[in-house]
């Protein structure tokens, strides 16, 4: 793990979390400002959610703060995105920074209960967090760690709320959204752990300091998980607006042997290389390409891999992640994935590409959650740049590269349940 611009990752030690004493020596104590000041600082800093949606944090804080009665804070460290590792690194190396963010967000919205969600299969994250919680005094806040038997929908806030209330990890129909009615029917702020860590530093140093790095539309820093075929995969911290060429270089790659990157996550975009190398990880530059910063994933697809086989495998995995609650997603994603798998194997039905595009249109925007939209976003950005490869497989069957080992991570269902 390398640190290009350390803020969140400042002072971290290999192999163990910072103690409270070390954490305070690195970051100094929290400023202790009040709720209104926290929301105002967050607003002026322009902190964007790092869980995937990139929603402005200040608006979520204000929405929950404005509700009546006791509130609940859910810190989401489930990191459901298989290519992402940043939340685990943050929680296992600098848990106190996340906890400072939990305290600040709870203060901002008036929450007396906080739940930190972590994956059930990461004991090091769990123990780092439990250890850090025990080092502190929690007189005003009841805090607990909730291990989540993660599936992809652990990143979806209504699914997480339902799970925390004893239900399945499946989204609910909205409204009500969690800020209106969440855990135990209380107004609930669900915020990614990296977002909370940024808040911890803005609470200390203010919005002006935060904006010293990054761009006006992507202020501050962000954690990236560099994965796929890279010489040095891992988690890095970079200023907002960092270009993809720089992100790949931090992963030890000159990009010479990379043909595409998946940006954001599996709900993100497939961007061709070298065309995308100059793009900045910044909303205004990414949006015209159907991409977004998302959860900060940059995954490299190398020249030696078969892009069609990779795409088919990822789409099958995404189809399997459906909660199977909504008809278009339950039927559409497997239809798309199946057609792609057959196409990759050289057994495409006539008009397969047109039918895949037709089903993509039927799935988009028709779920209770955004899972189908995200899956189709990856699909449509990929199909745009893979036209030649798709046609080639359609006509001639599997290519030589089809038999290489998979590059993009698709954990087995057993691994998720373990």
């Amino acid at each position, binding site marked *: 793990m390398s640190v290009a611009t350390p803020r969140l990752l400042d002072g971290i030690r290999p192999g163990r979390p910072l103690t409270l004493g070390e954490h305070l020596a690195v970051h100094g104590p929290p400023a202790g400002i009040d709720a209104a000041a926290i929301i105002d600082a967050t607003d002026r800093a322009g902190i964007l959610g790092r869980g995937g949606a990139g929603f402005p944090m200040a608006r979520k804080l204000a929405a929950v703060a404005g509700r009546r009665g006791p509130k609940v804070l859910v810190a989401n460290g489930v990191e459901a995105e298989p290519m992402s590792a940043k939340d685990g690194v943050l929680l296992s190396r600098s848990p106190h920074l996340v906890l400072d963010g939990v305290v600040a967000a709870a203060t901002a919205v008036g929450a007396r209960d906080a739940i930190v969600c972590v994956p059930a299969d990461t004991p090091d994250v769990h123990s780092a967090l439990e250890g850090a919680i025990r080092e502190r005094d929690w007189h005003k806040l009841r805090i607990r760690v909730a291990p989540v038997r993660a599936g992809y929908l652990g990143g979806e806030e209504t699914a997480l709320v339902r799970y925390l209330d004893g239900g399945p990890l499946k989204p609910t*129909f909205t409204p009500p959204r969690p800020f209106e009615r969440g855990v135990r029917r209380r107004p609930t702020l669900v915020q990614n752990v990296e977002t909370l860590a940024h808040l911890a530093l803005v609470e200390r140093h203010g919005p002006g300091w935060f904006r010293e790095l990054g761009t006006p539309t992507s202020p501050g820093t962000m954690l990236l998980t560099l994965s796929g075929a890279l010489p040095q995969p891992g988690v890095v911290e970079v200023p907002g607006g960092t270009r993809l060429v720089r992100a790949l270089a931090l992963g030890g790659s000159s990009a010479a042997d990379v043909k595409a990157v998946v940006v954001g996550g599996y709900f993100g975009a497939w961007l061709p290389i070298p065309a995308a190398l100059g793009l900045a990880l910044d909303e205004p530059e990414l949006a015209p390409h159907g991409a977004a910063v998302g959860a900060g994933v940059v995954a490299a697809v190398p020249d030696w891999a078969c892009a069609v086989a990779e795409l088919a495998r990822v789409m099958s995995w995404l189809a399997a992640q459906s909660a199977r*609650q*909504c*008809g*278009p997603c339950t039927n559409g994603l497997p239809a798309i994935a199946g057609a792609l798998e057959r196409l990759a194997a050289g057994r495409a039905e006539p008009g397969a590409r047109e039918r895949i595009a037709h*089903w993509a249109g*039927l799935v988009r925007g*028709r*779920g*209770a959650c955004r899972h189908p939209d995200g899956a189709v976003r990856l699909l449509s950005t990929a199909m745009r740049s893979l036209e030649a490869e798709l046609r080639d497989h359609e006509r001639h069957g599997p290519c030589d590269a089809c038999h290489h080992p998979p590059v993009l991570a698709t954990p087995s269902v057993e691994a998720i349940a373990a």
Partner: protein
Amino acid sequence: MTHRLRVNPIACSAHGMCAELLPERISLDDWGYPIISDQEIPDELLAHARRAAAACPTLALLLERDETTDR
């Protein structure tokens, strides 16, 4: 005041009654699930829209007052 139709996709189980009762605004996809126009429901269709919503066996079709026009 304007009205719009929305479906609760979790509750919907593709009975398809809505598309029969309100073909002006609702069609069915490849799997029998409703595709609902996001256009406003004009006054002359309002009674039909109410009937379609009431006829849904899973109460998945919602006729909602459009609040976006107030903002």
